[in-house]
């Protein structure tokens, strides 16, 4: 009896070991590919900038100090890095507003899609994915063609005599937001739709039977049930929006830096790779903290699905 158990245990151990061995190469590749470059970035952030780009292998905490503090080049006083804070804040604000805008547009879209008949649903899903066939840069330039002074909107309004001079939309914050919402909308719609599709609409009917108002049904039944989709969509939009690079430059005119432009400056004309590395890691940490806070908060009040 005991011997048999021992044999079974040994077999199990062998089994576990074999599995680890078999998956080791894949794990190793993933580990190296995922963490290797990040480790290099981390190491670089503690080095001295080379004279013309690259790094000197000499420890220096300067990069990290200058992420948060700046020495005024004129009166030599050390103070909080106001420029960096402004740029960080601008990017975070843009990412939050983009997330809210895509949510406001994406939720009704997903609801509409999920409430169609089974056959037409696939068609709507297909239509939503069409923008993904085109490169992000091209889609951004398409928006530019629509909103520029001699673009489609202004030309039509001028021809109709509604306005007498073109409305300046391009190179404003509105232009950036229009572009961002357009570019990231599918990333919001798809996860919400995936949740919505599984939604048991009999629950909605039951709500109405119990004299719930439309708003109450939305708030108490539909929203809690599709919450996982909303969370997934928000994360999918927020993270790339925080690092948005092309859209703010093309539609905003590049006058005001975003985080990604600030980092690019350090690796390009600024020739301060350690500072660029330190800034990149700071962004990663912010994203991670924001996600942790968000998921934890959302998890607390969430209703279990199924």
């Amino acid at each position, binding site marked *: 009896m005991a011997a048999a158990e021992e044999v079974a245990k040994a077999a199990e151990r062998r089994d576990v070991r074999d599995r680890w061995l078999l998956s080791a190469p894949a794990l190793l590749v993933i580990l190296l590919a995922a963490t290797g470059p990040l480790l290099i970035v981390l190491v670089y952030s503690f080095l001295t*900038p080379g*004279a*013309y*780009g*690259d790094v000197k292998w000499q420890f220096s905490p300067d990069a990290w100090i200058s992420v948060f503090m*700046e020495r005024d*080049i*004129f009166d030599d006083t050390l103070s909080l890095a*106001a*420029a*960096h804070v*402004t*740029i960080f804040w601008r990017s975070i604000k843009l990412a939050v507003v983009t997330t809210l805008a895509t949510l406001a547009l994406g939720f009704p879209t997903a609801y509409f899609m999920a409430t169609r008949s089974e056959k037409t649903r696939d068609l709507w899903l297909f239509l939503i994915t069409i923008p993904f066939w085109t490169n992000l840069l091209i889609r951004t330039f398409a928006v530019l063609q629509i909103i*520029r*002074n*001699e673009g489609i909107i202004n030309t039509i309004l001028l021809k109709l005599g509604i306005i007498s001079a073109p409305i*300046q939309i*391009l*190179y404003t914050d509105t232009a950036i937001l229009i572009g961002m919402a357009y570019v990231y909308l599918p990333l919001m719609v798809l996860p919400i739709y995936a949740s919505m599709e599984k939604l048991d609409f009999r629950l909605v009917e039951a709500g109405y039977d119990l004299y719930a108002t439309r708003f109450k049904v939305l708030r108490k039944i539909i929203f809690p049930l599709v919450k996982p989709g909303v969370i997934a969509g928000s994360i999918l939009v927020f993270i790339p929006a925080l690092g948005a690079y092309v859209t703010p*430059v093309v539609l905003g*005119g*590049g*006058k*005001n*830096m975003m985080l990604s*432009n*600030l980092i690019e*400056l*350090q*690796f*390009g*004309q*600024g*020739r*301060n790779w350690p500072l660029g590395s330190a800034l990149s890691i700071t962004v990663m940490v912010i994203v991670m903290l924001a996600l942790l806070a968000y998921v934890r908060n959302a998890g607390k009040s969430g209703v279990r699905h199924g």
Partner: protein
Amino acid sequence: MNWKTTATAMGLALLASTGLARAEGVLNIYNWGNYTSPDVIKKFEDKYKIKVTITDYDSNDTALAKVRQGGTGFDIAVPSQTYVPIWIKEGLLLETDPGKMENFKNVAPEWANPEFDPGRKYSVPWAWGTIGVVVNTDAYKGPADTWGIVFNTPDELKGKVNVVPEMGDVIFAAIKYVGGQQCTDDKAVLKKVRDLLVAAKPNWIAMEYNTIEKMGAGDFKATSDWNGSALRQRLANAAIHYNYPKEGFGLWSDNVVVLKEAKNVENAKLFQNFIMDPENAAGLSAFHRYANAITGSDKYMPADMKDAPEVVIPADAKPKGEFQKMCAPETQELYTKIWTELQK
């Protein structure tokens, strides 16, 4: 029987391919995008039976960083004059001694012995130009030969001016405008520069590279720009004029160098010599729309460039031109801070 024929065929194919490789050399060029005339390359390929491959880059820093990592497979690069001394100092270049090449006699005297490459030990001139101010005269008719268009924008142009976001060029122009020397680290001057830039920015509509299209479409009415870009804009819209700022303007040049890690050194040397031929130099100019530094190339130049005010600097503006230099790293750091402050 069958395997024998296969083997023979394979052997023959192998022979043929190696034979081909020997007869037709290759040359890998690493150059700025939209800068290399396909016609001239075709001519070079036909003449020497060399297959040319061109890869693009978009900034001096990108090119330097990539070549410094090594293993690029490129034979030739085209850095700007401010960067050539760095490439030399970092040991990235092969000393091909173009000064002794057959066609070197064509290089204009003022380009034969430049400060960035004394005696032309490494580099051959590719193109040179200026950085000035472009104005659409339909929008503004006043005097435009000043950086004031950008830094002290007249009312007609407020909210319609673009600035090409090339940090070194913008700081250079601002220093000239406040009356300082390029690459200065004088805090008093730099403070004026910072205040000038910060005060000027609200009048700018954008900081973009894409000026040819935007000036053409009327999104911008004025911009800081390179002369070749200005020429293309004028050809599209005759109201667009290029101006040489009286406070001083920057001169630049791009130069063809051979990398130390080049695998096709002889072909690269042939190319260096080839583009110093007047007709070929004119062919390059006809495409990128900048001047070359080759004497005798004018008779092959396209008609619309021969007397173009963007290409031929007027005599009275000439003394105001100044070669841009690479500033010291510590100075560069100050500039980056001002630049970040400007764009925050």
